[in-house]
C-alpha cells in the first residue's frame, strides 16, 4: 500500500507542466552529536555501561515550482548509536508533495502531523507512530505514508487522511536502555487487522479558531499506534511481543487563551476489541511576563491525565498529575529551561526532568536534558527505568 503513495506522488509530478525555469531548490539540515551519562549501570543484562555516544543527521531538500503552488520536501534521517543496534536506524521523516489550490491543498507522501494542545502528553495525536528510541519525550515520530486533503473554510479547516501502511513503534534493543528486562522482538509482532501492517487507516479532523478558543475534533479508524506488550518465549528466550489492535477513536482538543492564562484539554473515546474507554488530559498554564522588569518570562503549568482503564492502561499518564515551569530568557542566545515533575497517583512514583537549550554562535545549539525516576513500586511499569537516571548533552549543528 505504500506503493500507492509513491505512485500518487510520481503520477502527480508527471502531470505537472514543464517546470524547468521556475524551480526553486534549497538544501538545509542538521547534524546532532549526543553524549549520555547514566547515574548507574542498568538493571538488566547487557546494560552494564554508564556512557553512550550517538550521532544523527537529518538533511532537508526542498523544491517548489508553479509559483509555489507545488512543492516537494525530502527529509531522510539516520542515527548511529554506540551501544544500541536498534537505536542505530534510518527513517524517511518526510517525502511529501504538496499541491495548493484556492481553498484546498493536497499533501501526498510521507509526513508527520501533530494534533493537540497539552504539554505532558497528547492523547489526540494519533496519526504518526512514535520513534520511541529517540527519547522519552515522545516528540520524535516516524514518517507516515499518507494522502491528506485539507479544506480551508470560513467555519474551519477540514482534513481528511488516508493512511496506507503501518509503522511499528521503535524500541530499545538488547544493549539499549529504557526498556523492560526483555526486548521487543519484531518477528513476534501480531496485528488485529487481517492484512497486518498493510491495513489502510482513515482519519478526519475539523479544527477552528474563534475568539479566544482553538478547538479540534477528530475521528480515527485503524490500527492503534500504541502496542500491547506481552512476554512470550521465542527460541528459549523471553521476549516481548507487540500486539497492535484495531481501534476506532473520537476526540476533542480545546484551548482557551485568556490573558496570561492558557486553559487546555484533550479528551478521547476509544473502542477496541477488549473495551470502550475514555481518557483525558486537562491542564492550565500561567505566564509571568518580564520578571522584575527583565526580559525573562516564567510559565508555570499544571496538568492531570486520567484513563478510565486505570492501572491496566498502556498509557503514560493514567492517573497522574504533572507540574512544570518554563523559563525563557528571551536573550540573543534564546536560552530556555523547562523543569517538570510527574507524580503517579496509582503507583505513587515520581519522575522529574529538566531540559534546557541555548544557541552557540549563529549555527549551533546546545541542549541538556536530565531525568530521574523514583519508583519504589515494582508493579509500576516505570520501575523498569529505575536505574536509567541520565544526563544527556546534545550539540546540533545546522547547515
Amino acid at each position, binding site marked *: 500500500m505504500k506503493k500507492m503513495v509513491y505512485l500518487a506522488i510520481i503520477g502527480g509530478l508527471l502531470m505537472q507542466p514543464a517546470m524547468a525555469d521556475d524551480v526553486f531548490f534549497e538544501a538545509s539540515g542538521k547534524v546532532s552529536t549526543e553524549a549520555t551519562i547514566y547515574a548507574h549501570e542498568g538493571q538488566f543484562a547487557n546494560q552494564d555501561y554508564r556512557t553512550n555516544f550517538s550521532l544523527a543527521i537529518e538533511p532537508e531538500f526542498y523544491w*517548489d515550482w508553479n509559483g509555489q503552488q507545488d512543492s516537494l520536501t525530502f527529509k531522510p534521517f539516520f542515527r548511529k548509536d554506540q551501544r544500541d543496534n536498534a537505536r542505530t536506524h534510518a527513517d524517511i521523516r518526510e517525502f511529501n508533495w504538496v499541491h495548493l489550490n484556492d481553498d484546498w491543498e493536497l499533501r501526498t507522501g510521507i509526513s508527520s502531523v501533530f494534533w493537540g494542545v497539552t504539554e505532558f502528553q497528547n492523547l489526540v495525536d494519533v496519526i504518526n507512530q512514535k520513534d520511541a528510541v529517540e527519547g522519552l519525550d515522545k516528540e520524535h515520530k516516524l514518517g507516515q505514508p499518507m494522502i491528506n486533503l485539507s479544506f480551508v473554510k470560513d467555519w474551519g479547516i477540514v482534513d481528511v487522511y488516508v493512511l496506507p501502511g503501518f509503522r511499528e513503534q521503535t524500541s530499545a534493543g538488547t544493549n539499549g536502555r529504557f526498556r523492560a528486562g526483555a526486548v521487543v522482538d519484531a518477528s513476534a509482532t501480531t496485528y488485529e487487522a487481517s492484512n497486518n501492517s498493510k491495513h489502510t487507516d482513515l482519519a478526519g479532523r475539523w479544527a477552528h*479558531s474563534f475568539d479566544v478558543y*482553538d478547538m479540534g475534533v477528530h475521528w480515527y479508524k485503524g490500527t492503534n499506534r500504541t502496542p500491547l506488550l506481552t512476554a512470550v518465549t521465542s527460541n528459549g528466550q523471553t521476549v516481548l511481543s507487540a500486539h497492535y489492535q484495531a481501534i476506532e477513536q473520537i476526540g476533542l482538543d480545546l484551548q482557551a487563551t485568556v490573558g*496570561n492564562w492558557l486553559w487546555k484539554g484533550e479528551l478521547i473515546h476509544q473502542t477496541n476489541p477488549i473495551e470502550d474507554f475514555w481518557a483525558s488530559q486537562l491542564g492550565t498554564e500561567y505566564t509571568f*511576563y518580564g520578571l522584575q522588569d527583565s526580559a525573562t518570562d516564567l510559565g508555570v503549568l499544571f496538568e492531570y491525565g486520567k484513563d478510565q482503564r486505570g492501572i491496566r492502561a498502556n498509557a503514560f499518564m493514567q492517573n497522574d498529575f504533572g507540574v512544570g515551569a518554563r523559563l525563557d530568557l*528571551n536573550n*540573543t542566545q534564546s536560552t530556555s529551561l523547562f523543569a517538570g515533575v510527574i507524580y503517579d497517583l496509582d503507583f505513587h512514583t515520581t519522575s522529574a526532568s529538566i531540559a534546557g537549550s541555548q544557541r552557540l554562535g549563529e549555527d549551533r545549539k546546545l541542549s541538556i536534558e536530565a531525568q530521574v525516576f523514583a519508583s519504589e513500586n515494582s508493579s509500576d511499569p516505570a520501575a523498569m527505568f529505575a536505574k536509567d537516571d541520565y544526563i544527556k548533552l546534545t550539540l546540533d549543528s545546522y547547515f
Partner: protein
Amino acid sequence: MITKHLTSALIAGIVIASISGFTFADAAEDKGLAIAQQIKLRDEGWIDMTASMNMVLRNKNGQESVRQIRMKVLEVADDGDKSLSIFDRPKDVKGTAFLSFSHTSGADDQWLYLPALKRVKRIASRNKSGPFMGSEFSFEDLASFEIDKYSYKFIKEESCSMGTCFVVEQYPTDKNSGYTKRIVWVDKAEYRVLKTAFYDRKNSLLKTLSAEDYQQYKGKFWRPNAMKMVNHQSKKSTDLTWDSYQFGNGLSAADFNQNTLKRVR
C-alpha cells in the same frame, strides 16, 4: 471683608487658571491626536505588503548576531492588520512562523508554528514588552500603528533632518505596554516618523529608534529602508534593514490561516 474679596478673587483666579490650563492641555491633546490620525490616514489603502527584514543585533562589546525574517501583511479595514512572519535565520529556528491577527481594541490573536514538531501553538499576546528574537525591538515596537493604542499630547515643532517636525508624546493605553510614553518626531511635510524615544516603566529614557532612507511606494506610502534601535541602558543595539518591499501582491485573508502557517517557506 477685604479678606473675603481677596479669597473670592483668589478662587476665581485659580478656577480661571485651571480652566485655561485644561484648555491648553485639550488643544495639545487634540493636536497630538490629529497628527496621529493624519499618519494613519496617509498610510491607508496599501492593501497588502511583502518585505524581507534583516536584523543585526549588537551587544555592548560589538558582538553581532543576525536575524532574517520575511513578512506578509494584509491591511484589514476597521481592524488591525493580519501578518505572517517567516524566520530564516538563525538556522535553528528556520521554518518557524508567526501568525498574528492584530485588533484595534482587545487582545491580538497569535499562533506560532514549530517546524520540528509540526506543531501550531496559540500563544498569549500579553507579551507586548518582551524582546523580539532577542533584539532591542519589542513585539509592540513592531506592531502596526493603531490610533486607539495611545493617547496623545502635542509638544512643539522643531527643525529636523526632513525640515520641520512635530514632536508628540504618545502614552500607551494598554497596561501591558513596556512604556510610560513614547516621544515621536514626525515630519510636517509627509507625516513620516523619523525618530522615536521610548521611556520605560520608571519613566527614564530606554531606547531611541531612528528611521532612515525613506522611500515612497505606489506614489503614496513611505517606508524606511533602515531602522536603528539603540538601548541607552544596556548599550545594545539592533540595526534593521528592510528589503524587497512589494505592495499589491493580491493577498487575501485566505493567505493567513493555520494551513498557510504550516507550509510557509
